[in-house]
Protein backbone atom coordinates (compact mmCIF):
# COMPACT_ATOMS: atom_id res chain seq x y z
CA UNK A 1 0.00 0.00 0.00
CA UNK A 2 1.10 3.52 -0.57
CA UNK A 3 1.37 4.66 3.06
CA UNK A 4 -1.09 7.40 3.84
CA UNK A 5 -0.02 10.55 5.67
CA UNK A 6 -0.89 9.98 9.36
CA UNK A 7 -3.36 12.43 10.82
CA UNK A 8 -2.28 15.13 13.24
CA UNK A 9 -4.41 13.48 15.94
CA UNK A 10 -2.66 10.12 15.42
CA UNK A 11 0.77 11.74 15.72
CA UNK A 12 -0.20 13.75 18.80
CA UNK A 13 -1.64 10.60 20.45
CA UNK A 14 1.65 8.84 19.77
CA UNK A 15 3.48 11.83 21.25
CA UNK A 16 1.33 11.62 24.39
CA UNK A 17 1.95 7.87 24.75
CA UNK A 18 5.72 8.41 24.31
CA UNK A 19 5.69 11.15 26.93
CA UNK A 20 3.66 9.12 29.48
CA UNK A 21 5.97 6.12 28.96
CA UNK A 22 9.08 8.27 29.30
CA UNK A 23 7.73 10.07 32.36
CA UNK A 24 6.80 6.75 34.04
CA UNK A 25 10.20 5.20 33.34
CA UNK A 26 12.00 8.33 34.54
CA UNK A 27 10.09 8.23 37.85
CA UNK A 28 10.74 4.51 38.27
CA UNK A 29 14.43 5.03 37.51
CA UNK A 30 14.99 8.04 39.77
CA UNK A 31 13.05 6.81 42.80
CA UNK A 32 13.51 3.02 42.67
CA UNK A 33 16.50 1.84 40.68
CA UNK A 34 20.04 1.48 42.03
CA UNK A 35 23.03 3.47 40.68
CA UNK A 36 24.00 2.28 37.17
CA UNK A 37 20.48 1.08 36.34
CA UNK A 38 19.16 4.55 37.22
CA UNK A 39 21.35 6.07 34.50
CA UNK A 40 20.09 3.49 31.98
CA UNK A 41 16.48 4.20 32.93
CA UNK A 42 16.96 7.96 32.61
CA UNK A 43 18.59 7.53 29.18
CA UNK A 44 15.65 5.42 27.94
CA UNK A 45 13.17 7.91 29.42
CA UNK A 46 15.09 10.77 27.77
CA UNK A 47 14.88 9.10 24.36
CA UNK A 48 11.13 8.58 24.74
CA UNK A 49 10.51 12.17 25.87
CA UNK A 50 12.63 13.47 22.98
CA UNK A 51 10.58 11.29 20.62
CA UNK A 52 7.46 12.85 22.10
CA UNK A 53 8.81 16.36 21.50
CA UNK A 54 9.85 15.48 17.93
CA UNK A 55 6.39 13.98 17.29
CA UNK A 56 4.78 17.27 18.32
CA UNK A 57 7.09 19.16 15.96
CA UNK A 58 6.29 16.91 12.96
CA UNK A 59 2.58 16.47 13.81
CA UNK A 60 1.47 18.81 11.06
CA UNK A 61 4.15 17.75 8.58
CA UNK A 62 3.14 16.49 5.10
CA UNK A 63 5.88 13.79 5.32
CA UNK A 64 4.69 10.18 5.38
CA UNK A 65 6.49 9.42 8.62
CA UNK A 66 4.74 7.30 11.27
CA UNK A 67 5.44 8.32 14.87
CA UNK A 68 3.87 5.05 16.06
CA UNK A 69 6.43 3.12 14.00
CA UNK A 70 9.34 5.05 15.51
CA UNK A 71 7.93 4.65 19.04
CA UNK A 72 7.24 0.94 18.45
CA UNK A 73 10.78 0.37 17.18
CA UNK A 74 12.28 2.14 20.23
CA UNK A 75 10.20 0.20 22.77
CA UNK A 76 10.79 -3.14 21.01
CA UNK A 77 14.54 -2.57 20.89
CA UNK A 78 14.56 -1.74 24.63
CA UNK A 79 12.44 -4.81 25.43
CA UNK A 80 14.86 -7.01 23.49
CA UNK A 81 18.09 -5.42 24.68
CA UNK A 82 17.26 -5.39 28.42
CA UNK A 83 17.40 -9.20 28.72
CA UNK A 84 20.44 -9.40 26.41
CA UNK A 85 22.22 -6.93 28.69
CA UNK A 86 21.09 -9.04 31.65
CA UNK A 87 22.64 -12.12 30.08
CA UNK A 88 25.90 -10.21 29.57
CA UNK A 89 25.68 -9.03 33.19
CA UNK A 90 25.26 -12.65 34.33
CA UNK A 91 28.12 -13.87 32.14
CA UNK A 92 30.54 -11.18 33.38
CA UNK A 93 29.68 -11.48 37.08
CA UNK A 94 32.26 -12.72 39.55
CA UNK A 95 30.01 -15.16 41.40
CA UNK A 96 26.39 -15.36 42.49
CA UNK A 97 23.56 -13.46 40.85
CA UNK A 98 24.20 -9.76 40.12
CA UNK A 99 21.56 -7.43 41.54
CA UNK A 100 21.69 -4.80 38.80
CA UNK A 101 20.99 -4.90 35.08
CA UNK A 102 24.18 -3.02 34.21
CA UNK A 103 27.14 -5.38 34.72
CA UNK A 104 28.64 -5.00 38.20
CA UNK A 105 31.95 -6.49 37.08
CA UNK A 106 33.35 -6.86 33.60
CA UNK A 107 35.32 -10.07 34.12
CA UNK A 108 35.73 -12.40 31.17
CA UNK A 109 36.66 -15.40 33.33
CA UNK A 110 33.51 -17.31 32.38
CA UNK A 111 34.29 -16.85 28.66
CA UNK A 112 37.97 -17.74 28.93
CA UNK A 113 37.07 -20.76 31.08
CA UNK A 114 34.95 -22.19 28.26
CA UNK A 115 37.93 -23.18 26.13
CA UNK A 116 39.44 -25.28 28.91
CA UNK A 117 36.17 -26.93 29.89
CA UNK A 118 36.52 -30.43 28.41
CA UNK A 119 33.07 -31.56 29.54
CA UNK A 120 31.40 -28.55 27.91
CA UNK A 121 33.34 -28.97 24.67
CA UNK A 122 32.44 -32.67 24.58
CA UNK A 123 28.76 -31.89 25.15
CA UNK A 124 28.75 -29.16 22.48
CA UNK A 125 30.48 -31.49 20.00
CA UNK A 126 28.00 -34.28 20.72
CA UNK A 127 25.03 -31.92 20.22
CA UNK A 128 26.43 -30.52 16.98
CA UNK A 129 27.38 -33.92 15.54
CA UNK A 130 24.01 -35.48 16.33
CA UNK A 131 22.04 -32.49 15.01
CA UNK A 132 24.04 -32.35 11.77
CA UNK A 133 23.70 -36.12 11.28
CA UNK A 134 19.94 -36.04 11.96
CA UNK A 135 19.51 -33.12 9.53
CA UNK A 136 21.61 -34.88 6.88
CA UNK A 137 19.50 -38.04 7.23
CA UNK A 138 16.28 -36.00 7.04
CA UNK A 139 17.34 -33.68 4.19
CA UNK A 140 16.76 -35.85 1.10
CA UNK A 141 13.47 -37.46 2.18
CA UNK A 142 12.26 -34.02 3.36
CA UNK A 143 13.17 -32.53 -0.02
CA UNK A 144 11.13 -35.26 -1.76
CA UNK A 145 8.11 -34.68 0.45
CA UNK A 146 8.46 -30.90 0.21
CA UNK A 147 8.45 -31.14 -3.61
CA UNK A 148 5.28 -33.16 -3.45
CA UNK A 149 3.62 -30.68 -1.09
CA UNK A 150 4.80 -27.49 -2.76
CA UNK A 151 4.54 -28.35 -6.44
CA UNK A 152 1.77 -30.82 -7.04
CA UNK A 153 -1.92 -31.31 -6.45
CA UNK A 154 -1.35 -34.65 -4.71
CA UNK A 155 -4.65 -35.55 -3.10
CA UNK A 156 -3.60 -36.23 0.51
CA UNK A 157 -1.13 -33.33 0.61
CA UNK A 158 -3.24 -31.23 2.99
CA UNK A 159 -3.48 -34.14 5.45
CA UNK A 160 0.24 -34.92 5.13
CA UNK A 161 1.14 -31.27 5.63
CA UNK A 162 -1.00 -31.06 8.79
CA UNK A 163 0.48 -34.33 10.10
CA UNK A 164 4.02 -33.06 9.44
CA UNK A 165 3.40 -29.80 11.31
CA UNK A 166 1.70 -31.70 14.14
CA UNK A 167 4.75 -34.01 14.38
CA UNK A 168 7.03 -30.96 14.58
CA UNK A 169 5.02 -29.58 17.49
CA UNK A 170 4.49 -32.81 19.47
CA UNK A 171 5.61 -32.69 23.11
CA UNK A 172 9.20 -33.96 23.01
CA UNK A 173 8.75 -35.89 26.24
CA UNK A 174 6.06 -38.08 24.65
CA UNK A 175 8.44 -39.19 21.90
CA UNK A 176 11.27 -39.47 24.42
CA UNK A 177 9.40 -41.74 26.83
CA UNK A 178 8.13 -43.89 23.94
CA UNK A 179 11.13 -43.89 21.62
CA UNK A 180 14.05 -43.71 24.04
CA UNK A 181 13.29 -47.12 25.44
CA UNK A 182 13.18 -48.65 21.96
CA UNK A 183 16.43 -47.03 20.84
CA UNK A 184 18.24 -48.21 23.97
CA UNK A 185 17.31 -51.79 23.06
CA UNK A 186 18.92 -51.50 19.61
CA UNK A 187 22.16 -53.35 19.15
CA UNK A 188 24.97 -52.91 16.63
CA UNK A 189 26.48 -49.46 16.22
CA UNK A 190 23.64 -47.84 18.20
CA UNK A 191 24.69 -49.69 21.34
CA UNK A 192 28.20 -48.21 21.17
CA UNK A 193 27.67 -44.73 19.78
CA UNK A 194 25.85 -42.01 21.71
CA UNK A 195 25.89 -39.74 18.65
CA UNK A 196 24.12 -42.36 16.52
CA UNK A 197 21.45 -42.88 19.19
CA UNK A 198 20.98 -39.13 19.51
CA UNK A 199 20.79 -38.65 15.74
CA UNK A 200 18.21 -41.43 15.43
CA UNK A 201 15.81 -39.97 18.01
CA UNK A 202 16.44 -36.38 16.90
CA UNK A 203 15.41 -37.26 13.35
CA UNK A 204 11.90 -37.02 14.81
CA UNK A 205 12.56 -33.28 15.18
CA UNK A 206 14.69 -32.73 12.07
CA UNK A 207 12.45 -34.47 9.52
CA UNK A 208 9.16 -32.60 10.12
CA UNK A 209 11.01 -29.33 10.57
CA UNK A 210 13.07 -29.79 7.38
CA UNK A 211 9.90 -30.67 5.46
CA UNK A 212 8.22 -27.55 6.82
CA UNK A 213 11.03 -25.16 5.87
CA UNK A 214 11.89 -26.82 2.55
CA UNK A 215 8.23 -26.61 1.48
CA UNK A 216 8.53 -22.85 1.98
CA UNK A 217 11.77 -22.78 -0.01
CA UNK A 218 10.34 -24.75 -2.93
CA UNK A 219 7.13 -22.71 -2.98
CA UNK A 220 9.26 -19.69 -3.87
CA UNK A 221 11.31 -21.44 -6.58
CA UNK A 222 11.04 -20.19 -10.19
CA UNK A 223 9.32 -23.30 -11.55
CA UNK A 224 7.95 -21.51 -14.63
CA UNK A 225 11.51 -20.46 -15.51
CA UNK A 226 12.64 -24.07 -15.11
CA UNK A 227 9.81 -25.23 -17.37
CA UNK A 228 10.77 -22.58 -19.95
CA UNK A 229 14.41 -23.73 -19.88
CA UNK A 230 13.26 -27.33 -20.31
CA UNK A 231 11.04 -26.31 -23.23
CA UNK A 232 14.09 -24.64 -24.79
CA UNK A 233 15.87 -28.00 -24.69
CA UNK A 234 17.85 -27.76 -21.47
CA UNK A 235 18.59 -31.08 -19.78
CA UNK A 236 17.37 -31.84 -16.24
CA UNK A 237 20.89 -31.42 -14.85
CA UNK A 238 21.31 -28.06 -16.58
CA UNK A 239 17.94 -26.84 -15.28
CA UNK A 240 18.88 -27.97 -11.80
CA UNK A 241 22.36 -26.42 -11.80
CA UNK A 242 21.74 -23.27 -13.88
CA UNK A 243 18.18 -22.32 -12.91
CA UNK A 244 16.91 -23.91 -9.71
CA UNK A 245 20.06 -24.17 -7.59
CA UNK A 246 21.13 -20.51 -7.98
CA UNK A 247 17.58 -19.42 -7.14
CA UNK A 248 16.84 -21.64 -4.14
CA UNK A 249 20.31 -22.89 -3.11
CA UNK A 250 20.98 -20.21 -0.47
CA UNK A 251 17.49 -20.60 1.04
CA UNK A 252 17.87 -24.39 0.95
CA UNK A 253 21.16 -24.15 2.84
CA UNK A 254 19.71 -21.62 5.31
CA UNK A 255 16.72 -23.93 5.89
CA UNK A 256 18.93 -26.92 6.64
CA UNK A 257 21.19 -24.89 8.95
CA UNK A 258 18.07 -23.64 10.75
CA UNK A 259 16.85 -27.23 11.10
CA UNK A 260 20.18 -28.35 12.57
CA UNK A 261 20.23 -25.42 15.01
CA UNK A 262 16.71 -26.14 16.27
CA UNK A 263 17.44 -29.88 16.50
CA UNK A 264 20.54 -29.18 18.61
CA UNK A 265 18.28 -27.48 21.19
CA UNK A 266 16.54 -30.77 22.02
CA UNK A 267 16.55 -31.77 25.66
CA UNK A 268 13.85 -34.41 26.15
CA UNK A 269 14.81 -36.86 23.40
CA UNK A 270 18.51 -36.60 24.25
CA UNK A 271 17.82 -37.31 27.93
CA UNK A 272 16.05 -40.54 26.94
CA UNK A 273 19.05 -42.06 25.13
CA UNK A 274 22.08 -40.77 27.01
CA UNK A 275 23.01 -39.98 30.58
CA UNK A 276 25.16 -37.62 32.66
CA UNK A 277 28.32 -39.45 31.54
CA UNK A 278 27.82 -38.29 27.91
CA UNK A 279 25.40 -35.32 27.98
CA UNK A 280 24.42 -32.99 25.17
CA UNK A 281 24.87 -29.23 25.57
CA UNK A 282 21.27 -28.50 26.74
CA UNK A 283 21.52 -31.41 29.25
CA UNK A 284 24.81 -30.14 30.65
CA UNK A 285 23.60 -26.54 30.84
CA UNK A 286 20.43 -27.67 32.62
CA UNK A 287 22.48 -29.60 35.15
CA UNK A 288 24.81 -26.65 35.76
CA UNK A 289 22.03 -24.06 35.83
CA UNK A 290 20.57 -25.79 38.89
CA UNK A 291 23.44 -24.22 40.84
CA UNK A 292 22.98 -20.40 41.01
CA UNK A 293 26.75 -20.01 41.56
CA UNK A 294 27.32 -21.38 38.04
CA UNK A 295 25.16 -18.66 36.48
CA UNK A 296 28.11 -16.90 34.82
CA UNK A 297 29.33 -20.13 33.22
CA UNK A 298 25.88 -21.04 31.85
CA UNK A 299 25.22 -17.51 30.53
CA UNK A 300 28.65 -17.35 28.84
CA UNK A 301 28.17 -20.79 27.26
CA UNK A 302 24.70 -19.78 26.11
CA UNK A 303 25.98 -16.58 24.49
CA UNK A 304 28.76 -18.43 22.69
CA UNK A 305 26.42 -21.24 21.58
CA UNK A 306 24.07 -18.63 20.09
CA UNK A 307 26.76 -17.31 17.73
CA UNK A 308 25.94 -19.66 14.78
CA UNK A 309 22.25 -18.73 14.92
CA UNK A 310 23.07 -15.02 15.16
CA UNK A 311 25.40 -15.35 12.15
CA UNK A 312 22.57 -17.05 10.21
CA UNK A 313 20.27 -14.15 11.14
CA UNK A 314 22.88 -11.65 10.00
CA UNK A 315 23.53 -13.42 6.71
CA UNK A 316 19.96 -14.35 5.75
CA UNK A 317 17.42 -12.50 7.91
CA UNK A 318 14.76 -12.33 5.20
CA UNK A 319 15.10 -16.00 4.33
CA UNK A 320 14.83 -17.05 7.98
CA UNK A 321 11.68 -14.95 8.40
CA UNK A 322 10.17 -16.43 5.26
CA UNK A 323 11.01 -20.00 6.29
CA UNK A 324 9.56 -19.56 9.77
CA UNK A 325 6.41 -17.98 8.35
CA UNK A 326 5.97 -20.77 5.83
CA UNK A 327 3.00 -22.25 7.67
CA UNK A 328 0.89 -19.24 6.79
CA UNK A 329 0.15 -20.30 3.26
Amino acid at each position, binding site marked *: *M*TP*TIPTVRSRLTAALVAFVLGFGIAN*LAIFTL*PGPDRVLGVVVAGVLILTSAWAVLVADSPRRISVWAVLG*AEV*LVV*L*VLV*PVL*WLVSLATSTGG*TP*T*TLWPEAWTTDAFTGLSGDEELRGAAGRSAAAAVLATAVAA*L*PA*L*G*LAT*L*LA*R*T*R*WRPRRLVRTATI*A*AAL*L*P*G*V*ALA*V*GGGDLVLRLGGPFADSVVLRLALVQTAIAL*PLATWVLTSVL*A*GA*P*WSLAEAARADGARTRTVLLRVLLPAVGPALLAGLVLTALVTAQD*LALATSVTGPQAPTL*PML*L*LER*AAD*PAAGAQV*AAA*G*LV*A*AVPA*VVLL*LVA*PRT*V*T*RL*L*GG*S*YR
Partner: protein
Amino acid sequence: MSRGSGVVTPDRVDVDDGRPATRGEIWRGLSALVLLAVVVLVPLGWLVWMSLGHYGAVLGSAPWWHAIASTLVVTAGVVTVQLVLGLVFGVALWHLSGIWRPVRFLALVPAALGLVVGAQAGRAAVEGGFVATWFDLDPGGATTALAGVVLGELWRTTGLVVVLVHAGLSRVPTTLLDAAVADGASAWQRWWRVVWPAVTPALVALVAFRLLDSWRLLDGPWLVRAPGSFRTTGSAVVADTAFEGLAEGPATAAAVVLVVLGLLLVGAVLGLARVVRAR
Protein backbone atom coordinates in the same frame (compact mmCIF):
# COMPACT_ATOMS: atom_id res chain seq x y z
CA MET B 1 9.08 -13.29 -4.08
CA SER B 2 8.29 -9.96 -2.52
CA ARG B 3 11.62 -8.28 -1.94
CA GLY B 4 10.36 -5.43 0.20
CA SER B 5 8.62 -7.46 2.86
CA GLY B 6 10.62 -10.64 2.81
CA VAL B 7 7.43 -12.65 2.54
CA VAL B 8 6.23 -14.75 -0.35
CA THR B 9 2.94 -13.17 -1.30
CA PRO B 10 0.27 -15.49 -2.71
CA ASP B 11 -0.04 -13.59 -5.98
CA ARG B 12 3.65 -14.00 -6.68
CA VAL B 13 4.25 -17.58 -5.56
CA ASP B 14 5.46 -19.56 -8.52
CA VAL B 15 3.80 -22.88 -7.67
CA ASP B 16 2.57 -25.25 -10.32
CA ASP B 17 -0.55 -26.00 -8.28
CA GLY B 18 -2.54 -27.65 -11.00
CA ARG B 19 -0.01 -30.35 -11.93
CA PRO B 20 -0.76 -33.89 -10.74
CA ALA B 21 2.06 -35.69 -8.93
CA THR B 22 4.19 -38.07 -11.00
CA ARG B 23 4.90 -41.57 -9.76
CA GLY B 24 8.54 -40.69 -9.07
CA GLU B 25 7.53 -37.68 -6.97
CA ILE B 26 5.11 -39.80 -4.96
CA TRP B 27 7.79 -42.44 -4.28
CA ARG B 28 10.28 -39.79 -3.18
CA GLY B 29 7.66 -38.25 -0.89
CA LEU B 30 6.71 -41.64 0.51
CA SER B 31 10.31 -42.27 1.61
CA ALA B 32 9.92 -39.30 3.97
CA LEU B 33 6.57 -40.57 5.22
CA VAL B 34 8.07 -44.01 5.95
CA LEU B 35 10.94 -42.39 7.86
CA LEU B 36 8.45 -40.16 9.70
CA ALA B 37 6.45 -43.23 10.67
CA VAL B 38 9.60 -44.94 11.98
CA VAL B 39 10.79 -42.01 14.10
CA VAL B 40 7.41 -40.61 15.20
CA LEU B 41 4.58 -43.14 14.85
CA VAL B 42 6.51 -46.15 16.16
CA PRO B 43 7.54 -44.35 19.41
CA LEU B 44 3.99 -43.03 19.79
CA GLY B 45 2.51 -46.49 19.22
CA TRP B 46 4.93 -47.98 21.72
CA LEU B 47 4.06 -45.18 24.15
CA VAL B 48 0.34 -45.97 23.90
CA TRP B 49 1.03 -49.72 24.28
CA MET B 50 3.19 -49.16 27.37
CA SER B 51 0.63 -46.82 28.89
CA LEU B 52 -2.19 -49.38 28.97
CA GLY B 53 -3.15 -50.17 32.52
CA HIS B 54 -1.67 -47.01 33.99
CA TYR B 55 -4.36 -44.47 33.15
CA GLY B 56 -6.20 -44.98 36.43
CA ALA B 57 -3.18 -43.85 38.43
CA VAL B 58 -2.65 -40.77 36.24
CA LEU B 59 -6.26 -39.67 35.81
CA GLY B 60 -6.89 -40.05 39.54
CA SER B 61 -3.78 -38.14 40.54
CA ALA B 62 -4.48 -34.70 42.04
CA PRO B 63 -0.85 -33.46 41.61
CA TRP B 64 -1.01 -34.37 37.90
CA TRP B 65 -4.17 -32.29 37.36
CA HIS B 66 -2.63 -29.46 39.38
CA ALA B 67 0.35 -29.55 37.03
CA ILE B 68 -2.00 -29.56 34.02
CA ALA B 69 -3.80 -26.54 35.51
CA SER B 70 -0.43 -24.78 35.87
CA THR B 71 0.40 -25.70 32.26
CA LEU B 72 -2.91 -24.23 31.11
CA VAL B 73 -2.22 -20.99 32.99
CA VAL B 74 1.32 -20.78 31.58
CA THR B 75 0.13 -21.56 28.03
CA ALA B 76 -2.77 -19.10 28.15
CA GLY B 77 -0.53 -16.43 29.66
CA VAL B 78 2.28 -16.86 27.13
CA VAL B 79 -0.05 -16.99 24.10
CA THR B 80 -2.16 -14.01 25.24
CA VAL B 81 0.80 -11.78 26.09
CA GLN B 82 2.60 -12.69 22.85
CA LEU B 83 -0.47 -12.20 20.68
CA VAL B 84 -1.16 -8.77 22.20
CA LEU B 85 2.47 -7.65 22.00
CA GLY B 86 2.84 -9.16 18.53
CA LEU B 87 -0.19 -7.26 17.25
CA VAL B 88 0.76 -3.99 18.97
CA PHE B 89 4.34 -3.99 17.69
CA GLY B 90 3.49 -5.62 14.35
CA VAL B 91 0.91 -2.95 13.55
CA ALA B 92 3.10 -0.11 14.86
CA LEU B 93 6.07 -1.29 12.78
CA TRP B 94 4.02 -2.25 9.72
CA HIS B 95 5.04 0.72 7.58
CA LEU B 96 8.54 1.02 8.98
CA SER B 97 10.84 0.67 5.99
CA GLY B 98 14.27 2.22 6.57
CA ILE B 99 15.14 0.74 9.96
CA TRP B 100 13.00 -2.42 9.84
CA ARG B 101 16.02 -4.60 9.00
CA PRO B 102 18.05 -3.82 12.14
CA VAL B 103 14.88 -3.93 14.27
CA ARG B 104 14.00 -7.34 12.82
CA PHE B 105 17.50 -8.63 13.49
CA LEU B 106 17.42 -7.43 17.10
CA ALA B 107 13.94 -8.87 17.60
CA LEU B 108 15.12 -12.31 16.42
CA VAL B 109 18.36 -12.40 18.45
CA PRO B 110 16.78 -13.75 21.68
CA ALA B 111 15.26 -16.65 19.72
CA ALA B 112 18.82 -17.68 18.83
CA LEU B 113 19.56 -18.37 22.49
CA GLY B 114 18.95 -21.77 24.02
CA LEU B 115 15.81 -22.62 25.97
CA VAL B 116 17.81 -23.48 29.08
CA VAL B 117 19.81 -20.25 28.89
CA GLY B 118 16.66 -18.14 28.49
CA ALA B 119 14.99 -19.93 31.40
CA GLN B 120 18.05 -19.54 33.60
CA ALA B 121 18.27 -15.82 32.80
CA GLY B 122 14.58 -15.34 33.62
CA ARG B 123 14.86 -17.26 36.89
CA ALA B 124 17.98 -15.38 37.96
CA ALA B 125 16.28 -12.04 37.15
CA VAL B 126 13.39 -12.67 39.55
CA GLU B 127 15.37 -14.62 42.19
CA GLY B 128 17.76 -11.99 43.48
CA GLY B 129 18.50 -10.41 40.09
CA PHE B 130 17.63 -7.02 38.64
CA VAL B 131 13.85 -7.62 38.49
CA ALA B 132 13.85 -8.57 42.20
CA THR B 133 15.89 -5.41 42.98
CA TRP B 134 13.76 -3.08 40.86
CA PHE B 135 10.40 -4.32 42.13
CA ASP B 136 11.52 -5.38 45.63
CA LEU B 137 10.45 -9.03 45.15
CA ASP B 138 10.75 -11.57 47.94
CA PRO B 139 13.25 -14.34 47.19
CA GLY B 140 12.36 -17.96 46.55
CA GLY B 141 9.08 -19.78 46.12
CA ALA B 142 8.02 -22.26 43.44
CA THR B 143 5.61 -19.77 41.87
CA THR B 144 8.28 -17.07 41.58
CA ALA B 145 10.69 -19.55 40.02
CA LEU B 146 8.08 -20.74 37.49
CA ALA B 147 7.15 -17.12 36.71
CA GLY B 148 10.85 -16.41 36.14
CA VAL B 149 11.35 -19.19 33.62
CA VAL B 150 8.11 -18.27 31.85
CA LEU B 151 9.38 -14.67 31.70
CA GLY B 152 12.57 -16.04 30.10
CA GLU B 153 10.51 -17.92 27.50
CA LEU B 154 8.40 -14.82 26.81
CA TRP B 155 11.52 -12.75 26.30
CA ARG B 156 13.09 -15.41 24.07
CA THR B 157 10.18 -15.81 21.66
CA THR B 158 8.15 -12.55 21.67
CA GLY B 159 10.44 -10.88 19.10
CA LEU B 160 9.89 -13.86 16.80
CA VAL B 161 6.12 -13.47 17.20
CA VAL B 162 6.37 -9.75 16.34
CA VAL B 163 8.34 -10.57 13.18
CA LEU B 164 5.81 -13.24 12.16
CA VAL B 165 2.84 -10.92 12.78
CA HIS B 166 4.64 -8.29 10.71
CA ALA B 167 5.14 -10.88 7.96
CA GLY B 168 1.41 -11.72 8.13
CA LEU B 169 0.52 -8.03 7.82
CA SER B 170 2.78 -7.74 4.78
CA ARG B 171 0.51 -10.27 3.03
CA VAL B 172 -2.46 -7.93 3.15
CA PRO B 173 -3.27 -7.17 -0.51
CA THR B 174 -1.99 -3.68 -1.25
CA THR B 175 -4.48 -3.18 -4.06
CA LEU B 176 -7.37 -3.61 -1.63
CA LEU B 177 -5.83 -1.15 0.82
CA ASP B 178 -5.22 1.39 -1.93
CA ALA B 179 -8.80 0.96 -3.11
CA ALA B 180 -10.10 1.44 0.45
CA VAL B 181 -8.02 4.64 0.79
CA ALA B 182 -9.35 5.87 -2.57
CA ASP B 183 -12.92 5.14 -1.42
CA GLY B 184 -12.34 7.32 1.64
CA ALA B 185 -12.41 4.50 4.25
CA SER B 186 -11.22 5.60 7.69
CA ALA B 187 -8.26 3.91 9.40
CA TRP B 188 -10.63 1.81 11.56
CA GLN B 189 -12.70 0.76 8.55
CA ARG B 190 -9.53 -0.23 6.68
CA TRP B 191 -8.40 -2.25 9.71
CA TRP B 192 -11.65 -4.14 10.31
CA ARG B 193 -12.83 -4.53 6.71
CA VAL B 194 -9.52 -5.14 4.88
CA VAL B 195 -6.58 -5.88 7.17
CA TRP B 196 -8.24 -8.05 9.83
CA PRO B 197 -9.89 -10.56 7.43
CA ALA B 198 -6.62 -10.87 5.49
CA VAL B 199 -4.39 -11.31 8.51
CA THR B 200 -6.65 -13.64 10.53
CA PRO B 201 -5.45 -16.92 8.93
CA ALA B 202 -1.85 -16.00 9.73
CA LEU B 203 -2.79 -15.10 13.30
CA VAL B 204 -4.73 -18.34 13.80
CA ALA B 205 -1.74 -20.36 12.54
CA LEU B 206 0.55 -18.37 14.82
CA VAL B 207 -1.71 -18.90 17.86
CA ALA B 208 -1.90 -22.64 17.17
CA PHE B 209 1.90 -22.80 16.81
CA ARG B 210 2.56 -20.84 20.01
CA LEU B 211 -0.15 -22.78 21.86
CA LEU B 212 1.43 -26.17 21.13
CA ASP B 213 4.93 -24.82 21.72
CA SER B 214 3.99 -23.41 25.13
CA TRP B 215 1.96 -26.49 26.05
CA ARG B 216 5.07 -28.68 25.70
CA LEU B 217 7.35 -26.27 27.57
CA LEU B 218 9.93 -28.42 29.36
CA ASP B 219 13.39 -26.92 29.84
CA GLY B 220 12.53 -24.02 32.19
CA PRO B 221 9.95 -25.80 34.35
CA TRP B 222 12.27 -28.81 34.63
CA LEU B 223 15.07 -26.50 35.74
CA VAL B 224 13.01 -25.10 38.63
CA ARG B 225 11.17 -28.27 39.60
CA ALA B 226 10.67 -28.70 43.33
CA PRO B 227 9.75 -32.06 44.86
CA GLY B 228 6.05 -32.22 45.67
CA SER B 229 5.22 -28.87 44.08
CA PHE B 230 2.54 -28.66 41.39
CA ARG B 231 3.89 -25.32 40.15
CA THR B 232 5.28 -26.96 37.04
CA THR B 233 4.19 -28.09 33.57
CA GLY B 234 2.87 -31.44 32.36
CA SER B 235 6.02 -32.04 30.28
CA ALA B 236 8.23 -31.50 33.34
CA VAL B 237 6.13 -33.95 35.39
CA VAL B 238 6.39 -36.58 32.64
CA ALA B 239 10.15 -36.08 32.30
CA ASP B 240 10.65 -36.11 36.06
CA THR B 241 8.57 -39.27 36.47
CA ALA B 242 10.26 -41.11 33.59
CA PHE B 243 13.90 -40.01 33.89
CA GLU B 244 14.26 -39.18 37.59
CA GLY B 245 11.53 -41.23 39.26
CA LEU B 246 12.06 -44.15 36.85
CA ALA B 247 8.32 -44.85 36.97
CA GLU B 248 7.94 -45.51 33.27
CA GLY B 249 4.38 -46.87 33.33
CA PRO B 250 2.69 -43.79 34.83
CA ALA B 251 5.00 -41.55 32.78
CA THR B 252 3.82 -43.13 29.51
CA ALA B 253 0.15 -42.70 30.46
CA ALA B 254 0.78 -39.10 31.51
CA ALA B 255 2.58 -38.44 28.20
CA VAL B 256 -0.39 -39.79 26.22
CA VAL B 257 -2.80 -37.64 28.26
CA LEU B 258 -0.54 -34.63 27.65
CA VAL B 259 -0.57 -35.19 23.86
CA VAL B 260 -4.34 -35.72 23.77
CA LEU B 261 -5.03 -32.62 25.88
CA GLY B 262 -2.71 -30.56 23.65
CA LEU B 263 -4.52 -31.73 20.52
CA LEU B 264 -7.92 -31.03 22.11
CA LEU B 265 -6.75 -27.56 23.11
CA VAL B 266 -5.49 -26.62 19.66
CA GLY B 267 -8.57 -28.25 18.08
CA ALA B 268 -10.83 -26.10 20.30
CA VAL B 269 -8.92 -22.95 19.35
CA LEU B 270 -9.02 -23.75 15.63
CA GLY B 271 -12.74 -24.61 15.85
CA LEU B 272 -13.45 -21.37 17.69
CA ALA B 273 -11.46 -19.40 15.10
CA ARG B 274 -13.46 -21.04 12.31
CA VAL B 275 -16.77 -20.16 13.98
CA VAL B 276 -15.66 -16.55 14.55
CA ARG B 277 -14.48 -16.21 10.94
CA ALA B 278 -17.72 -17.68 9.60
CA ARG B 279 -19.75 -14.91 11.30
